[in-house]
């Protein structure tokens, strides 16, 4: 035994300077992160930002070009086999056997992890997932929401210490999403560490901590409040007539970093409060427009971070 068992430390994931390139294109750049045990850590960022690549490096599916670190106390380069035993990984694409039934999929995984009573473990999981009565149905025939539940059940079946969930709720209806998150919180309360990547802002707010990654760079991390506070973004919410024209007029003006429609309102944000106020002053006179200064939403912060990083890195 080389590494100390991870239970002695309260850090589940501790990586420094991870980089990974594919065909000369750097997908993850110098990424460092720490995830405490028993927390739900949200991993946010646009498509192609390197979320999946990072998750794959953490569980030994990809070898980092540089950087090092530990996952559950094991070296991510040397001890991939030991990490795999402790980690449940739910892939972005449904990756259970579509031509096996619910029960057969669960029993397969239970046997792979060497569980003594594979049949019993599968039956218990079917009951917990509320899939009783469907155990003989082929996994490929389940609806999106049930597939996702089954996938989560499959990767939690061997009682892992760490769950890596790659966009687990993509394409799932709101009710199933809510149930899913309740389940995740219950698991975390039981000591499981969860790293979950997502596009949804409401899901980010359900995480204990979040990290935002774009173009391979980790741009912000901390609790939701910390990330919003650190952004130093001023945001006005505008309601009124012909907001579309207003958006066209404001976009690109000095001090206006971002203009984005939100339903029947428009969010106008800028990092330089004074410049922003100066620019919008003429429009604040309009009677049809109602301006209100408020907290930026997490989405405002992320989109601003993303556009800024695009300028810096691309």
């Amino acid at each position, binding site marked *: 035994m080389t590494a100390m068992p991870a239970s002695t430390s309260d850090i589940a994931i501790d990586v420094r300077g991870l980089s990974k390139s594919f065909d000369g294109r750097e997908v993850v750049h110098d990424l460092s992160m720490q995830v405490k045990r028993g927390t739900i850590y949200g991993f946010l960022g646009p498509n192609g930002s390197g979320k999946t690549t990072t998750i794959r490096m953490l569980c030994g599916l990809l070898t980092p070009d540089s950087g090092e670190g530990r996952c559950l106390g094991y070296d991510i380069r040397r001890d991939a086999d030991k990490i795999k035993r402790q*980690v449940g990984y*739910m*892939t972005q694409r449904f*990756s*259970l056997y579509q031509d096996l039934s619910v029960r057969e999929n669960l029993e397969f995984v239970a046997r792979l992890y060497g569980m003594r009573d594979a049949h019993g473990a599968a039956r218990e999981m079917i009951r917990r997932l509320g899939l009783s009565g469907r155990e003989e149905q082929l996994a490929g025939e389940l609806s999106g929401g049930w597939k996702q539940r089954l996938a989560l059940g499959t*990767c939690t079946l061997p009682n892992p210490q760490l769950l890596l969930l790659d966009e687990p709720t993509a394409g799932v209806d709101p009710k199933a999403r809510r149930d899913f998150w309740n389940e995740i919180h219950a698991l975390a309360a039981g000591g499981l560490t969860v790293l979950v990547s997502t596009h949804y802002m409401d899901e980010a707010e359900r995480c204990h901590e979040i990290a935002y990654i774009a173009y391979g760079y980790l741009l912000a991390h901390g609790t939701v409040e910390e990330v919003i506070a650190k952004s130093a973004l001023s945001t006005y919410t505008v309601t009124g007539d012909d907001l579309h024209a207003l958006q066209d007029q404001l976009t690109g003006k000095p001090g206006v970093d971002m203009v984005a429609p939100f339903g029947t309102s428009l969010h106008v944000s800028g990092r330089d409060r004074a410049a922003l106020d100066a620019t919008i002053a003429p429009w604040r006179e309009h009677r049809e427009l109602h301006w209100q200064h408020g907290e930026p939403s997490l989405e405002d912060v992320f989109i601003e971070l993303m556009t800024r990083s695009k300028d810096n890195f691309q």
Partner: protein
Amino acid sequence: MSVTSPPKHRSEIPEPRFGFWRRSYAMVVKEFIQLRRDRVSFAMIVIIPVMQLLLFGFAINTTPRNLPTAVLLQEDSDLARSILKALENTSYFHFTREVHDVAEFDDLLTSGKVLFGVEIPRGFERAVRRGDYPALLVAADATDPVAAGSAMSALGVVVQTALAHDLFAGDPPSLPFEIRAHARYNPAASSRLNIVPGLVGTILTMTMLIFTALSVTREVERGTMESLLSMPIKPVEIMFGKILPYVLVGFIQAALIIGIGVLLFGVPVRGSLVMLTLLSTLFITANLSIGYTFSTIVQNQLQAMQLSMMFFLPSILLSGFMFPFMGMPVWAQYIGEGLPLTHYLRIVRAIMLKGATLHNLEYDSLALLALMVLAMTIAVTRFRRTLD
């Protein structure tokens, strides 16, 4: 989004002129692009016909010459040497072994190391001089009637002409001895006896190869490989898990073909059924390992099928299934030695038709084992444990 401005009306998209041609053209362009991207498919377009042409053109010879022959010389006389010379001059026979007793002679024929055996009995010359009309024995391994056939049919006439110059100044009415040609194992020269055992090997090669060749690529294409790799399972374990079920499948197939061969076509099983079972299992496993190796090399299921085809073609042409192995040029024989089917054909024909024992088949069994281990080693080292 805007509350006040009226929704803009978009005009309806019309059916284009020559719609049929435009859409077909779009499809053709797309298919060409995809074909060009798939390098392996592209290569196959060239490689498969060229390979077939070269093999049929250069390697295959249905009237083979210089066939390996053993000699059992019971007396060392001028006449005996003349006869041997005459036989070799026919260019059908090539004396590769000289043996000293009948057991060795039979052994070589059974193991397939030689295709013919010539025996000149003791007191042959004296018997000829006395006018006793003695017999010269030419035994042929007739399991493959094509290989032995032309040499056998040429035997009488050609030897007579060749000997005429040596022995008799004039034109003798006939030979003073008998050439007793003995087509062993398959006296009726029934090609069925040769083909049915051969089919066992050929069918198994085809099916086993494809079963496992698709196995890894299927997991990759369906996306299940990613989650499989993230679980604590090792490449060797994946390989065994994928190969073992098909050993049983292959076994059932082999039993089916042999059973039909015996019951319907009257092909005998002269050797040990246990030995046949064991060596067939070895052959099945060797093919499954090779198929599995392919599946760790290729990118998708189409390529796996193509690579299997590329392996199957020379297996059929160069193994001795369709055409006599001994009749092929040496380079083709070397390629043939690298194919499991070659060795299995010798094994299955020898056990079923000749009643061979393991002792006769040592070389071919070891060759099968070596090919299997080689394939498995390549498969395990080639297997990508990560998605890098």
